[in-house]
Each structure stands twice: as structure tokens, then as C-alpha cells.
């Protein structure tokens, strides 16, 4: 595949938009509310019927099959087009009605917002949206039956791969991230189990529950994003002004993990994560990262943990698989100072892609076949969570005070 960022191949997975109408809603308001309160959601029978029909049309187009997984935030079903049982989709039903209504969760809003606009071969496609009874929002997503990248990484015994395969996967991830940034979207939760695998081996970036548009200049963002193991040091230090390079750090961590076949730094707390970064990558200081000590959450690490930034030799020793050019790329992605770190664009411009070995063709990639259940697992999860691990749910906290 091309080294330079090709414009998105629009149309490959065209979003089919269908009117998703709140049928149940209009009806419900009429029938269940007290007469005095009736007017909220409006609509007399005729209007409602029309809306209902359109939604019904969309809903009828899909057949909801068995449940693939259920989480606190969503239930995932296998589904297919009514006319064509072969055309599988995943239907992610967002639980709106948990206990009492508090408005649509920010995750759901973010996912909708961004997936509606982003169309790229390496980003999960949103086919359509419809509502079902009890006011649930259903996202019809591309069906990705081959599990996720994490499964492949973890199956050390069963799955063998080398530099060529890593190059193919990283290339697909790189293009997805570049495309997001090119469209002013920060993903903010890149990790192997958000990288789903399509039937043809294509990697698809999923879970936009933490994604947001770039902030306007001088407007801060929350630092409580990205699953801890993949979170860059500036966020661990509480930076509120950051750029696409936060995602590049996560990409670098995924890159390292693909080679090591285990996460590069598995912190149990935020401070522990920083310690691991200090030990394994280098301790941030004013020399290697001017201004770092002024960050809100900056923590000084004493001599015990203070390590110079690891040089090329260390990387060559640990990540020799990808060769010296590949190591250069990895080091550029894992640079402590976010201003010196590669951008997604620079990652794609790197020499490594043009260096031997050539990336493996998609069809020859190893696969494990996670099957539908795995996709259910992946989609039901909320962003920022590590399954069964030291749960990191901080990312979920919405700071209402922050502007």
C-alpha cells in the first residue's frame, strides 16, 4: 500500500443513511404520559406515523440475530440484511434507559458524531442508525468477525508473525489515525483491542466513545483519556493542551506491543505508569522536554527512578525484529516531548515503509478468527477500560466544570 497518505477512499464503505425516527417516542408520549404533560415530544398521529414508517423501514431492513455480548453501556447483536442473509452486520444497541433517563451518554454522542462523518477503509463503518422500542438507539456497524489485534498478540504459541506482518498492521493503523487527525478528530483510545479485524484481514479502528474534535486554540481538554498503558506522559502529567501526538504515542505503544507480544508498560496506577515510562523510555526533564516541569500534574522522580532517555542501542536490542530503520520510527513515536514526537503524517512519511521487508499482503496475514463473540466483547466495552485488568475507568468521568 502507498506510503503517503492517500485521500480516503470514499465510497468503499458508503454510509447508508436512513431516517431513524423516533416512533416509539411519539406514540409513548401520547399514550403513557398524563394528559396535561402530553406535548413534549409532540406529533399527532399522522406525523408520527410517517416518522414511524421511515424508522420502521430501516429497522425492517435488518434482522437482529443472537446476542454477541453485553456491557454496561451497550448490547451487541449479530444481524443481517433481511434481503440478504449473507450480509452480516453488528448491531450495537446503546442502553439509553438504564435506571432513569439522564440524557444520551457522552460516549454514544461521540460515537455517533464521529462515525457519521468519518469514512475510511481502516475505520469501522457505521451503516445506519435506527431506534427501537423503549427508545434505544441502534448503531448498525460493519461486521468484523476476525477478532482484534490483542488476540493475535497474546496468542504467542498459536500465532507466529514477523516484521512484514507488523508493517502491514501498523500501516493500516497509521492510515486510520492519520485520517482521523486530518479530519480534526482525536481518537484518544487507541489500543490493540480497539483494532478489530475484518474478514479480509483489514484492521479497523473502532470505539469512538472518547473521540473528540480538536479543541479551538486556548481551550483546554481533559487529560483523563486513553487507557492507561497507552497513555502518553503529557496526559499523565495532566496536560490540558495537547494534539494528535497523544494518539501517536498510543500507536507507538501498540507498535512495541506487537513486537514484544506483551504491553510495553503495564502500570497499575497513573504514577506507576509514569515510573515505568521513566524506567523503560526515559525520565522527562527540562532538558529532553522543555516546559515539562510546569505541567499541572508534573511529578519529579528522584534519582532512583531517573533514567536518561534510552538510546538506539537499547531499542535495537529489544525491538531488533523491525530493523534499525524500524527502530528509528518507534523511537520517533515514543519521544517524550510531544512537540518533538512524530505526527501521524510524519509516521506515514517514514522510510521504514519503503525498507525491506515488504509488508505482508492482507490475505496472507495470520488470523485467529475471534468469531462473532469477540466482536461482541469489543464493542460492548466502554472506552478506557481494561478487561479483568486493573480497571481504569477514570477516563469515563465527565468534567462538567471544564469548559
Amino acid at each position, binding site marked *: 500500500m502507498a506510503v503517503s497518505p492517500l485521500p480516503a477512499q470514499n465510497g468503499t464503505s458508503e454510509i447508508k443513511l436512513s431516517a431513524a425516527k423516533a416512533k416509539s417516542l411519539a406514540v409513548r408520549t401520547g399514550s403513557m404520559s398524563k394528559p396535561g404533560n402530553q406535548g413534549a415530544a409532540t406529533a399527532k398521529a399522522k406525523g408520527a406515523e410517517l416518522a414511524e414508517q421511515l424508522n420502521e423501514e430501516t429497522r425492517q431492513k435488518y434482522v437482529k440475530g443472537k446476542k454477541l455480548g453485553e456491557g454496561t453501556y451497550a448490547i451487541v447483536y449479530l444481524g443481517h440484511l433481511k434481503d440478504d442473509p449473507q450480509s452480516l452486520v453488528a448491531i450495537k444497541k446503546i442502553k439509553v434507559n438504564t435506571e432513569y433517563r439522564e440524557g444520551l451518554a457522552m460516549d454514544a*454522542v461521540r460515537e455517533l458524531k464521529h462515525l457519521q462523518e468519518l469514512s475510511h477503509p481502516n475505520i469501522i463503518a457505521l451503516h445506519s442508525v435506527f431506534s427501537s422500542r423503549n427508545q434505544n438507539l441502534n448503531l448498525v456497524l460493519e461486521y468484523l468477525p476476525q477478532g482484534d489485534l490483542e488476540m493475535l498478540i497474546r496468542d504467542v504459541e498459536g500465532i507466529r508473525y514477523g516484521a512484514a506482518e507488523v508493517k502491514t498492521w501498523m500501516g493500516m493503523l497509521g492510515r486510520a489515525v492519520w485520517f482521523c487527525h486530518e479530519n480534526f*478528530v482525536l481518537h484518544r483510545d487507541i489500543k490493540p483491542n480497539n483494532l478489530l479485524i475484518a474478514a479480509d484481514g483489514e484492521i479497523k479502528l473502532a470505539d469512538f466513545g472518547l473521540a473528540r474534535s480538536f479543541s479551538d486554540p486556548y481551550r483546554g481538554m481533559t487529560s483523563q483519556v486513553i487507557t492507561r498503558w497507552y497513555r502518553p506522559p503529557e496526559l499523565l502529567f495532566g496536560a490540558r493542551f495537547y494534539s494528535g501526538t497523544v494518539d501517536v504515542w498510543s500507536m507507538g505503544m501498540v507498535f512495541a506491543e506487537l513486537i514484544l507480544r506483551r504491553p510495553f508498560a503495564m502500570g497499575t496506577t497513573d504514577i506507576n505508569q509514569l515510573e515505568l515510562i521513566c524506567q523503560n523510555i526515559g525520565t522527562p526533564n527540562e532538558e529532553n522536554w522543555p516546559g515539562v516541569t510546569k505541567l499541572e500534574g508534573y511529578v519529579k522522580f528522584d534519582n532512583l527512578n531517573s533514567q536518561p532517555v534510552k538510546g538506539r542501542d537499547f531499542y535495537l536490542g529489544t525491538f531488533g525484529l523491525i530493523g534499525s530503520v524500524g527502530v528509528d520510527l518507534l523511537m520517533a513515536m515514543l519521544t517524550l516531548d510531544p512537540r518533538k514526537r512524530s505526527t501521524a503524517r510524519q509516521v506515514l512519511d517514514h522510510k521504514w515503509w519503503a525498507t525491506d521487508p515488504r509488508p505482508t499482503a492482507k490475505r496472507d496475514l495470520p488470523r485467529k478468527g475471534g468469531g462473532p463473540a469477540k466482536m461482541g466483547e469489543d464493542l460492548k466495552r466502554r472506552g478506557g477500560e481494561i478487561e479483568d485488568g486493573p480497571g481504569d475507568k477514570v477516563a469515563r468521568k465527565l468534567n462538567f466544570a471544564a469548559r
Partner: protein
Amino acid sequence: MAADFWASTQRRYWQFSKEQLAELRDKLDNEDKTLVQQCPLPDRRLLSHFFNTQLVKLGKRMPIRQQAIATAQVYIRRFYIKVPIRQTNPYIVMATALYLACKMEESPQHIRVVVGEASAVWSGSEHLPTKPSFADQQDVIPLDVSKLGEFEFYLISEMNSQLIVHHPYRTLQELQSTLNLAPDEISLAWSVINDHYMTDLPLLNPPHVIAVSAIFLALTLKPTQGGLQATIATAAALSNTPQLSKNTSSADNRAPDMTSNKVQNFVAWLAEGEVDIKAVVDCSQEIISLYEVLEQYKETTCKEQIAACMKKRGLV
């Protein structure tokens, strides 16, 4: 601001021609002609102005940005080309649109805060319908958290869950240095952009056209009170309609040289660029006529007519 405008859902699904808009609205009106006759509502622009002032009033009580208010107004406008306004409680529509817009613009407000503030703004005695027949009413809006949550869902559905709105503000900021705009010109253009949400322009034109029109108006409106005529004249000149040109001379005399230079630079810049000049002229004229229409604005009239309409429909 996110994603590419040219590939956005806004451009693909939410930009119309005037004819298309009129057709959509006629269709809604025809659904129930008697209701339309029985419940007269003010001119759409006056009504939009009413919405605008109400949203600003509500917005002031929370730490939210102008852009969220702008997004909310676009949501309301989109919503009302799909749902007849007379079948809704506009206060709930406003509160919900603002609530959702805050989430979209990354300044989320808790749903209870929005509901609380909305009730405070709209339930106070001064906002009760003034006609004696309504004096017994307690609340204009029976608003609660679940209702807003429910309605949010409806709003999202009506908009086909296409939620990102591109605004002209960013373009304005980007053009600041290119066109060498002074801070007062920027802030005037900024207010013109704020005002354009009271018209159909957000559904008719891409944001950059609106930003350019706003700059054009700011440059020509600024110098004097007579600026409006000058603007009309310049707009007329641009579009080759000479009938208004007699107003030009008086206004031109008063305009300082600095500004006329800037206008010339601007016109030259416009001539070289690929911005649709006809659209800019249309926009400018639309905004000018908005200002004329707004002179008839009376908040009480809007309030009463909406209240009467809701009363009739049993929506209160």
C-alpha cells in the same frame, strides 16, 4: 469543528436551495391546513429571533460558548423543517437543542442543570403568557429530566443522527490576517454571524460564504450609521442592480479612507478567489433584510402566539 466540510453530512444532507426549503415547509403546512390557519405564528425570522434571545438568556446562566448556542439554533431549524412547529412545545425543543449542542461542542452541561435553568428562565411570572385567559397557568413548560432525555432522542432521530455542524466563526478567524481586519471589524463580523442564525442562511450556504458575507457587511457597515445604505448600494453594485445606487454618495462621503481602502482590498481579494460572489451578495442582502424585519419584533407577540398555539393543541 471536525471533519472535512466538503465530505460532511452537513453539506451532503443539510444544504438546500430556497425552493427545496419552501417545498419542505409547504408540505408540513399542508399536513394540517386548519391548524395553520387557527394558530397564526409570527414571521419565521421574528420567531427565530425569539428563539435566539431565549437561548442566549438560557445560555447566560451556564458556562457555555456562543458556538453551542449557534449549533442549537441550527438544530432547531433542521428540526422544524421535518416537524410542524405547531405540534411541538418550542420551549422543550429549545432546551433540548441547547443541551445536545453543549455535548456536541464539548462543553457538556448536566441534564439537571439545563432543566433547572430552563425552568427558572421560562417559568418565572414575567414569562407567563400575558393574556388573562392564561393567568391560571403555572408553567409554560412542564419540563423534567426524563422529558428532556426523551426529547433528545427524538431530536437526534429527526436529524438522522447527523450532529456535526460547521460554523463560519473559524473561517472568520482564519481570514483575519489575510484581510488585515481590525478587532472591531472582527467583532462586528462576529455579531453578524451570530445574527445570521435567525435566517435560513445556515441551511442554504456553506459556512465560508457566510463568513465572507459577514466580513463584507462589517467592513461596509462600520464607518457610520449611514453604513447600511452604503452596504445596500455596494451589494447592489456587486450584483449589478443599479436602482439603489442613489443612496451611495451620501454614505460614501462619510466613510473614512482607511475603510474604503479595506473594502477595495476585500473586493479585489474576492474577485481573485473562488468564493461564490453571487451567494455572498444573496447572503448579505438576506442579512440586511433581517435587520429591517427585526424592527417589528415584539417579544410579547411571539410569546403570546406560541402560548396560544400550544394551548390550542393541548401541549401546555
